[in-house]
């Protein structure tokens, strides 16, 4: 299942869509909104996606992973719209026979989804806002 959604993500349901009776291992990555970035408080984030292309790019990543590992189940769900700190922005789930490959496949998928899927987030601070990674970082260094 690949889903780009404006609704809050139900992690348990995403896990269920990726489960398999012949799997012994499920790895889940959950990306959540941090309450701080660049040493400042994050008030909220705005996510937007080029939806049709994002789904196509995520599908390519899944196909690559399925060629490398024995995926018995998988799911990627990405939230868009306005998110507050603590909310779930993305969930990746993979089920495999054994645990090592579950970690490898899940990490491969999230790394590549983040690198390739046309999805953007804008951080909204108390004193301004900024599209993340759009420009060279000239903000205060974080600790």
């Amino acid at each position, binding site marked *: 299942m690949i889903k780009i959604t404006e609704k809050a993500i139900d992690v348990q349901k995403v896990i269920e869509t990726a489960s398999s009776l012949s799997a012994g291992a499920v790895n889940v990555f959950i990306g959540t909104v941090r309450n701080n970035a660049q040493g400042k408080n994050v008030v909220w984030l705005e996510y937007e996606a080029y939806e049709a292309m994002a789904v196509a790019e995520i599908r390519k990543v899944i196909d690559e992973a399925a060629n490398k590992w024995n995926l018995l189940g998988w799911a990627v769900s990405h939230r868009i719209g306005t998110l507050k700190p603590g909310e779930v922005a993305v969930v990746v789930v993979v089920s495999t026979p054994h645990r090592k490959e579950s970690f490898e496949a899940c990490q491969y998928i999230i790394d590549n989804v983040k*690198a390739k899927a*046309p999805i*953007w987030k*804008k951080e909204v601070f108390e004193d301004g806002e900024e*599209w*993340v990674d*759009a420009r060279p970082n000239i903000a205060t260094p974080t600790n």
Partner: protein
Amino acid sequence: MKYSLKTFGITRDILGGKEVIFEMDGEKVGELKLELMARFPEMKSLNSLLVAVNNAYAKDDMVIKEKDEIALIPPVSGG
């Protein structure tokens, strides 16, 4: 040629619209990028600028047509 450009993230702020009609003589992705940077110098400050044609990343030598779905892809930051 008149191209319809979908904009996302910071490129929407720079071009000032969700879907922008862009006229130029060039017919290639690379020419489109150069022309965008010439007319909107702020584009040069981005970490990267990619162009997607019909839902896939396009190389600079790809020829674009007026009916193609063309999108500007500034640095992605999902997840």
